[in-house]
């Protein structure tokens, strides 16, 4: 029938919104739900910690208070001395996060920019360590570490294993950061202005995923700081292994709580410092 070629028509007006009263009521219910969920989860996490705190101050008879369990950590002489295992754990945290980031950041940006077709395979590889229990990893790693032991290298050598363990967490954090920016347009804009691939990666893309890099760093460091299974079974001493041996070598039952809390506090304070420093850096950038 009719014969007219037409261009697009104006969109229809949006349907009228709901009355404000209903929205306010809904928001109130939602807020109440949030508070309930928050309280439940806070109780779930905090109650065991509070119980640990209480038991770490338990005296020799039930119901009394004492700081003996904490004193025992401070006065522990080793071998090795506690301070050296703190050092080792700190160095392991730093090394693990730096190596993980140095491996993942350029690789992931490169894959996103140039070889998108292998991204699925790369994701699978990075997430694989999640599916393998640490103890199974040890079975595979033990012969390698037995050879390394001949060279009398320090517990720092654990970072190879920790980098593998940290891969899934760091990958997820970095992938979220990469997804949040328009990598293709930014890189093409930079290239059209004369930037080479190295400049695109490190002066254009990486600074725009600073938050993701910081998250990956925190996760990798947290993993290395809290790791026990691999270090213990491969016979290396990090802070976690040291705290465990303090607890084992004392008849005071409260020490197990004080050492666990000390390990937790150590990691928590450290991550808080790193996170705070990262936020200051970001604010400075803006």
């Amino acid at each position: 029938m009719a014969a007219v070629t037409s261009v697009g028509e104006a969109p229809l007006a949006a349907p009228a919104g709901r009355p404000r009263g209903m929205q306010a009521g809904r928001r109130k219910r939602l807020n109440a739900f949030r508070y309930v969920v928050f309280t439940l989860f806070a109780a779930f996490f905090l109650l065991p910690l509070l119980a640990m705190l209480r038991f770490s101050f338990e005296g020799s008879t039930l119901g009394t208070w004492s700081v003996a369990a904490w004193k025992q950590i401070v006065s522990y002489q080793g071998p090795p001395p506690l301070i050296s295992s703190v050092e080792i754990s700190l160095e392991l945290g730093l090394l693990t996060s730096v190596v993980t980031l140095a491996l993942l950041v350029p690789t992931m940006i490169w894959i996103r920019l140039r070889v998108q077709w292998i991204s699925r395979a790369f994701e699978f590889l990075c997430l694989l360590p999640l599916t393998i229990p640490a103890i199974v990893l040890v079975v595979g790693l033990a012969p390698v570490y037995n050879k390394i032991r001949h060279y009398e290298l320090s517990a720092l050598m654990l970072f190879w294993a920790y980098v593998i363990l940290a891969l899934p967490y760091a990958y997820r954090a970095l992938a979220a950061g990469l997804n949040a920016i328009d990598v293709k347009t930014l890189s093409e804009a930079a290239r059209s202005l004369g930037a080479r691939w190295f400049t695109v990666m490190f002066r254009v893309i990486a600074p725009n995923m600073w938050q993701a890099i910081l998250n990956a760093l925190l996760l990798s460091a947290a993993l290395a700081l809290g790791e026990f299974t691999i270090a213990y079974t491969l016979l290396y001493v990090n802070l976690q292994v040291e705290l465990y041996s303090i607890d084992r070598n004392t008849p005071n039952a409260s020490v197990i709580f004080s050492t666990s809390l000390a390990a937790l506090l150590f990691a928590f304070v450290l991550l808080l410092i790193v996170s705070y420093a990262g936020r200051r850096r970001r604010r400075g950038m803006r």
Partner: protein
Amino acid sequence: MTSPQTQNARKVAGRAAVEVRMEGLSRRYGAVVALDGFDLTVQAGELVALLGPSGCGKTTTLRLLAGLEDADAGTITVGGSDVTGLPASKRDMGMVFQAYSLFPHMTVRQNVSFGLRLRRVGSAQRDRRALEMLELVGLSSQADRYPHQISGGQQQRVALARALAIEPQVLLLDEPLSALDAKVRAQLRDEIRRIQLDVGITTLFVTHDQEEALAIADRVGVMREGHIEQLAPPVDVYSRPSTSFVAEFVGLTNRLPGTVSGSTVTVRGRDLPLVDLSTPGGTVTALVRPEAVTLAPDSGGPASSGPLTGTVIASTFLGATSRVTVDLGDLTIMAQLSTADAAEHPAGSRVSLTIRPDPVLVSVDAPADVEA
């Protein structure tokens, strides 16, 4: 008297304009042919707009020229030198993208001077040039803001300043206005044209918006399936389309059944001159612009049941003009009138139509009774 911005443009126009020549360019994506033996020459200092529907190959052309993709075949020469094998970073072309492309972690000033920094221009000179460019786009007061602190239109202006700051040989604009609202789009469109004329840079502009292409370009290339259907000044593309595709893509077109004999086509009893005199005789579809159709109240006399009388079924207000749809019984036809004239023909009124005897293009490939 020249404006300060024009004077500034003369200051920033660092080098002579060059000719861009693309010959036999081909690009495939798997089985899909995006460009097939594409040829285009953009004269020095000219602004050519590539216009076409999605998937016609216009963006591919721009990306091949920018070096963001490699051509399967063909050559690209800029100012006489072959750049086909050069990477994007060495092509010396400024590009403004459809998506906001400012670097979020840099201020406006740092964004504009980024290209100069890569060229190792000293910081004082870099700053001076960045400010000159920002003055050119009217944004020198925003130099220390971050991209998220300025509007979309301002971001695209900064992107334009950034592209021009490196004194490129060619400016490439990849639908830079499509993310903006209508008013800002029209303003920035005019501004881009002003700056392009002032700086005198050879420019390729890609758009799917016909109004934008017609308003801004020296020549418009209408693309279809990897090749240019017509490359001509905007007036010619609109009023003398060379193919039925161009006629239908650029502007609104009535498709009316007609019969060709000699140098005319007869449409509902009216003889209209043909654009293409070599059209063979027979039944065709005539493509008639709505503005070539005028309306008059039907007197109710003997002609009231003639082939060009009908009933107004709708009137669409477009501002200064209105589009009136008339039902002729066996087909509908659109007329574009001034709003004052359209008001005389409300929906339901009987009207008689006159078709202005402008040369018309006919299509022999599509039957007229198909609703488009």
